[in-house]
Every structure is written in C-alpha cells, then in structure tokens.
C-alpha cells in the first residue's frame, strides 16, 4: 500500500553532508539521475556551500565533477580548502545559453561525470525539460542554479530548493520533491567565512578607521 507520506524511490542519492537536510530529501541526499534546481535570492548567500560537501565526497572517491558556465571564476584555493580534489573538477565555459544546454547534454549523455553544476541564464521550459530528460539518462547529481525569479515559473525538475540567508546560516525551502510536500523551511548551518577566520567580528570603530586611514599597522603577507 502506498502511503501519501512516503517518498518516491529515486535511482540513488549522494549525501549532502547536512544530516538534517538529508532527512528531508528522497533517498537521503541529492538525487542521482534527476534534475535538481537551486534557486538563490542572490549570489553569495552560501549556495555553493550547500553542495560542496557532496562534491568533496565525490571528488575524494575519484568521481568527476563538471561546472558548466559558472557566472564567476570558481576559486581554486577556496575549493581545495573545502576538501574538493581539484584533479577531478572540470570547468566548461559556454558563451551562449544554447551552447551551455548542448554542453550539458553532451556531458550527461557521455556518462562519465558524476556531478554537473550548471548555471543557465533565462532557461525556458522546453530547454529545462530536455535537460531533465538528459539527467534521467545519466547517473549524475545534476544541479541547476537559477535566480530567485524562477520560483514562480513551472519546472520539470525533480527537486526544487529556494535559498534565503538566515543569520549565520541558510534557510532552505523545499518547493518540490518526489513524495509529500515539505512543511517548514529548514535552517542549514553552512560554513561561513567569519568562522573560518577565527576572529571576533570586526569592531565598528576599526571599520571606520579602515575607511579613513590607508595604512594600518598590520602583519603583511608578502
């Protein structure tokens, strides 16, 4: 008997690295062989931190990860510091939306990549549908990063997650998932750089000084 509260069984999943989040996802992690949409309010809220633990686990076991048409330069030192093995990470630049879509299909059909992160500008429904079909033929974790405006449009993605900044962490709302709809937004404690710095937050008076004085008596990296 099928109960309404049960998840549909996906082909497989790779743990996200955030146990509380895993429990809300079908299969206990990012679904493989299905399209996942991640919709961010703006860049720099921690949207990459959400997928990095999964990427680190994949690359550590020698699986290949492709970044398709990223909007900025993926920064190698930061990626390595997050545990991603750079030897298994490949960046593909695509000048236009059609080229990016073509490249995504090629990567997914070739079947030798285990994760594809794609940034498609203004993708239309038929294009997303093609991408979802291509994702279905692969066994890869396929994440499509889109602007927040896309929430209102319909999408063939199997999993849709909207992100908002929430204090020191990240607030994820699961808009769509196979199985029962998710009730409440989740708070996810992604790594923020202020923790990594290991210092107290910058005092306001010093901030004012930094704006006025060009030189501060500080240690110099040279």
């Amino acid at each position: 008997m099928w109960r309404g509260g049960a998840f549909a069984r996906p082909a497989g999943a790779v743990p996200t690295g955030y146990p509380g989040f895993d429990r809300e996802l079908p299969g206990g992690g990012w679904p493989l062989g299905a399209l996942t949409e991640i919709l961010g309010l703006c860049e720099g809220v921690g949207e990459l931190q959400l997928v990095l633990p999964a990427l680190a686990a994949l690359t550590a076991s020698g699986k290949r990860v492709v970044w398709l048409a990223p909007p900025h330069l993926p920064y190698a030192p930061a990626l390595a510091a997050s545990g991603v093995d750079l030897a298994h990470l490949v960046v593909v630049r695509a000048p236009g939306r059609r080229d990016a879509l073509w490249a995504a299909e090629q990567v997914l059909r070739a079947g030798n990549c285990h994760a594809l992160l794609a940034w498609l500008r203004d993708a239309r429904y038929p294009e997303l549908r093609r991408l979802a079909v291509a994702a279905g033929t692969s066994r890869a974790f396929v994440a499509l990063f889109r602007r927040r405006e896309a929430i209102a449009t319909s999408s063939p993605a199997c999993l849709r997650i909207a992100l908002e900044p929430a204090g020191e962490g990240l607030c994820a709302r699961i808009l769509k998932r196979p199985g029962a709809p998710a009730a409440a937004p989740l708070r996810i404690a992604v790594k923020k750089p202020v923790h990594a710095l290991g210092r107290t937050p910058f005092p306001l008076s010093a901030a004012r000084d930094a704006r006025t004085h060009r030189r501060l008596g500080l240690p110099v990296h040279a």
Partner: protein
Amino acid sequence: MLLEVEGSLRLAGGLEPLAARLRADIAAMGLAAQLAVAPTARAALWLARDGGGRTLEDLPLAVLDADAESLEFLRGIGISTLGGLLSLPREGLARRCGRRLLDDLDRALGKAPEPRAFFSPPPRFAAQIELPAEVTHAEGVLFAARRLLVQLEGLLAARQAGVRRFTLALLHRNAAPTAVEVDLASAAREAGRLGRLLGERLAVLGLARPVEAVRIEARDFEPMHGFTAGFFGDARAEAEGWARLVERLRVRLGDEAVYGLAFHPDHRPERAWRRVDADADAPAAPGDLGPRPLWLVEPPRRLGETGFELLAGPERIESGWWDGGDAKRDYFIARFEDSSLAWIYREAGEWFLHGLFA
C-alpha cells in the same frame, strides 16, 4: 593496386565477402574500380585491365605491356588473344618479339617468380575532391569530406597510426581557401569520429561563400595500437570516453572553454590559481590561507563607500612589485544589504569587490 588475399581469405570469410567489402570501401572513397582475382599478380593485373571475369586465354593482346611493333606483328600473323600467343613456339616468339614478352607470359602463368616490393604508405595525407556543383551548406561539404576521411582512415590503418589534428580546406572560385583546423584530444583514425567532429566544427563556422572543392590534409601521424578490452570494467575505455567528450566540447566551444583548476604559489588572489588541462594532476595544496571566497570576481568591481558592513579583517596582501602586477591591498569580509557575503579590498583609497562567499 595488387593485393595478396590468399592469406586473408579465412579471416574475411571467403573470396566473395572480401570482394564485397573491397567494393564497398572503394565506393565510400568515391572511386571506381575493376576487381579481378588470379593465382599470380600479373594474371590478375591483365584480367583487371580487360574487365575481369574471363580466362587468361580469352584476353585480347591489348592487356600486354608489349611495344607497338610486336603487337602489330602479332596482329599481322592472325594472333588476337593470349591463348593464340601461348600456342606459338617459344623460340620463335623470343626471336621476333624479344625475351621480355616471354618472361611476362611465364610470370602470368606462374612459371617464373615475380617478386614485388611491398607498398609502404606515405607519412602524410593530402587529398582533394571536386564537388559536382558549388555547395553552400555544411552538409554538402561534410558529405564530400567524409569520403576523404575514409581514405585517411585507410592510410592510417596501414601505418598503424592516428592523427591528433587535421585540416579541411574549402576551396572557393575566386577567393583564397578557407582552412578549418580540427584538433583531437587523443590520436584517432576512425572516419566516423573525425566526421562527427568536423560536422560540429562546420556547424559553428557556417559557410561564407560557395565551396567548389574540399581538401583534407593531415601530417604528424602518431603511432596507435589496438587495445584489448577489459573484462571487469575498463579504466582505459573510461578515460578514452572522457577524452572524446572533452574533444567534442572543445571543437564547439573553443580550446579555452574546457579546463581544470590548480593552485599557483602567489599571494595575490587573482594569481593564486591556474588553468590546467582537464584531468591534469594538481600540485599540492598550499598551507592555510585566510578565508577565501568560492567565487572570484574578475576583474574586481569598484564599489561605493556605502552599501556594505565590514565583518572581519583586514588581511593585508602586499606583493608583486617585481613583475608589474603590484598589489597593496587590505582585504575585508563584508556583508551587503541583501545579506550576501563578499570579499572586498581597499587599495589606494577605493573599495573593490573581489569575491563572493557563495
């Protein structure tokens, strides 16, 4: 062209299948050929000259490499076929027409040996096809180019080699030829794969003017050997599949479009990384740097004095006076009004956005 086929009959499954394959390959190259089979090379040559299918005795004298004077003499005494020629007394024939004609006959009949040097294919390839009419669409060019690629494949197979790059030249009526370079990720020789790459390349390029003829050139052959497939998964096949994917992406998106990332020992953030070939080995990770953003904004974007709040910092980076890329910067972590976290720096009294903690 002479082929020694007796040793290959079992492999090909008999003479008829072998002949059918030969005909198909020759047709794919856009050539016409006359096939003939005989126990000796010279007999096969003569049969092919006549059109094949008959016995040696019925062949006209025209197939011989004899001089015009001898042929005239033989026609004068009423000899019109090889059979008639063979029935003549040998001594008389040798005296009248020279020893060479007699030797040729002996070789054709297998009475005398006829050693031949094996053909060794040249180490480069260049071939051209005139198109039946001027072509303005890529499919037409591709169709003709495929015929040349089949020839190239044959040459490469004979040399046990592959190519990493080849050039397609499109010849126009009143203009300089257009050259289309195709680079491959790994050495290859299959006409199908080369044709697909060429198709992607032509689809992007578009034809500016009508094409009269196409020409394919390839050099710098690389040795390429067969491989045995693994029984339990195949790491080599997997690597080859990946190489082909990279190659397809590069052909359409450009060589620079597919790359891997690696560190570079430099304190300046924009120089602390390098593009490397996809799947190249990365050098060891550097020690603990400060907090670094996952997105680097290149070039740095100038900011106003307001609109952000400084959270942590500064980290001073002062480097590069020796190579002209002088940097004297104080880096801060800042939060913007839309609560995104950014890596910004102050240099010469101005604020710049250099990264996003995504």
